[in-house]
């Protein structure tokens, strides 16, 4: 029989981890939204809705300093970030569509350049994923090859059971270590009846076929058709578990300031604006095309993975109702 943890013990586990000076991050209510945030106690964990932002910010913060500078005695002093001081972190309560994202992003952050900011946070984190029971008509994880019960990316994976407790599966050594260290909170399952998983609104997509179509259709009337209503905001990219573009800005004065890395989005008109004033993606549909291309072709070309977990956040958040699942279905259905 697999191990289980009751909901109360899951909350107790959080309390214990907090006591151990670990940073525990999980879905938490903040005004009207649920966000991944550090939990001060197990009672703060909210498991009844998908957080508005993905869990990627745990490794890839919205904004972080990457160095600071100050003029001291006439000489510029540069101070690096002491990454050894990044805290040990446990992410609890991430559904598969969020838990899977670091596994996808590891590739790009350790490719031609090892992004130690990302990687150090990854090394110091343990992900406790949880099977999803709350899908809606915007969800399409199954369409992109995941499922409500996929444990990809999780170190420890929880499956909600009908009796309210969770079946536990240690996916990695990190996960096993977490269970072993707090063994008394885990017990034997009385029954292994899993709660029903979330329903999905879309059919399974042929990602290979889609990629193939994209390869041949950099120029296509489709782009203008689907994206001419895009207003060029970054909400889809910012709440996406897989989008990982960032910008670097120096902020401050000539005397002191910080160099900051923060989220950026290919939907922004200035994203590809050259210093010369030339902008190769001069209209919105070229920018939107890049979003699709990057997710379903370029990233696959480079890293062999699709840059989408089907969480449906962009579908829900798009101010003008652009529906990526619908677009993928359209491409999937194309014959040429």
């Amino acid at each position, binding site marked *: 029989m697999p191990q289980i943890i009751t909901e109360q013990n899951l909350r107790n586990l959080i309390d214990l981890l907090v006591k151990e000076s670990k940073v525990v991050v999980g879905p938490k209510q903040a005004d009207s939204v649920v966000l991944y945030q550090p939990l001060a106690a197990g009672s703060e964990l909210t498991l009844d809705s998908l957080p508005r932002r993905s869990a990627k910010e745990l490794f890839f913060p919205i904004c972080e300093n990457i160095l600071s500078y100050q003029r001291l005695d006439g000489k510029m002093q540069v101070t690096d970030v002491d990454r050894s001081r990044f805290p040990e972190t446990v992410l609890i309560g991430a559904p598969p569509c969020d838990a899977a994202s670091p596994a996808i992003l590891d590739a790009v952050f350790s490719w031609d350049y090892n992004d130690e900011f990302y990687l150090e946070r990854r090394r110091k984190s343990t992900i406790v994923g949880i099977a999803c029971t709350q899908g809606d*008509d915007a969800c399409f994880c199954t369409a992109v090859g995941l499922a409500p019960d996929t444990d990809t990316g999780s170190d420890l994976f929880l499956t909600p059971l009908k009796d309210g407790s969770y079946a536990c599966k240690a996916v990695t050594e990190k996960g096993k270590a977490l269970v072993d260290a707090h063994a008394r909170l885990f017990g034997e399952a009385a029954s292994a009846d899993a709660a029903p998983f979330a329903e999905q609104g879309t059919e399974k997509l042929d990602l290979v076929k889609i990629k193939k179509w994209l390869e041949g259709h950099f120029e296509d009337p489709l782009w203008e058709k689907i994206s001419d209503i895009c207003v060029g905001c970054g909400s889809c990219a*910012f709440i996406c578990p897989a989008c990982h573009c960032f910008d670097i800005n120096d902020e401050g004065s000539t005397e002191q300031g910080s160099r900051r890395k923060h989220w950026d*989005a290919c939907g922004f008109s200035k994203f590809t604006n050259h210093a010369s004033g030339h902008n190769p993606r001069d209209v919105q549909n070229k920018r939107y095309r890049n979003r699709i291309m990057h997710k379903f072709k370029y990233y696959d070309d480079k890293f062999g993975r699709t840059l989408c977990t089907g969480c449906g956040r962009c579908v829900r958040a798009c101010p003008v109702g*652009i529906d990526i699942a619908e677009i993928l279905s359209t491409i999937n259905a194309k014959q040429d």
Partner: protein
Amino acid sequence: MNAKANKNQSSCIEPSYYQAVTQAIRTQAVQVLKDGTVAGVVGYLPGRRKGTARPALITTPEEAEKLIFSPACVNNLSVYLTKSKKGVLKQGRIGIVAKGCDMRALAGLMGESQIKREDLFIIAVDCAGVYGSRAERSESVTEANIARKCHECTVHHPEGADFVAGAATELSGLTPLEAEEMARIEALPQAERWAFWKEHFSRCIRCMACRQVCPFCYCEQCLCDKNRPQAVENSPRPAGNTAWHIVRAMHLAGRCGGCAECERVCPMDIPLNLLNRRMAKELKELYDYEAGLAPAEKGPLNQYKEDDDQSFIK
């Protein structure tokens, strides 16, 4: 204000009302496309998901048959006249479906020389209300799922359009949520007001959805994207976020028509329209000005009177 204000009020807006508006829009859009009055119509099409809708530019009578008006038709389509649809205007007159609140933006844009009345064919919606942000998409609209802005709507029955679709029956007895919330915040001690906004602004991720959907944020170079000099920090940190939202509210003061799109699209649920409404209230009190009721040559912040209030100046 509303010459033909409909006094019949109810507690639920039935789907039949939306169907009637839809039918009227379709008929009118088909006609103006067929007779060549317009080169295209900006309207709404249904979304893939049940009970959703999205903006669309259609150019053929066939497509016009698919136009809808439903409680999900929340967007202020006037944003397309200054941004991505700018090109369309050059090919001729364009039709636009507009609710009363959207028409205030159209009036404002005319006053700011961004569009000309003669370039538009306005298909106005006599509007009973639309869904609130993330509201339950049930078929009928009630106080439970109507948008916050619709609670205090004063422009259900738009005037000055080329065509008005439908006849709205307003929901009765709606609580003025925004006014109450604004009064609540105004009554807070100053430090708590700061804490309230700090909490909200800190959550901001600078996705710029608020800016991008705003009909009045049509600058080609946003002050807040500039880095020489940098007036507002680019990075999504509490400091820059606060500055951004203050600057945004200031730039919209006296211009914002109150469509509340900024607030609707905010993925972080920041109550941005409160800021806009607060500024509108101030300008109404000080200068008796309300934005967007008619195209105005000058807004309240680009005109003056010699005896304007200066009680705050020593």
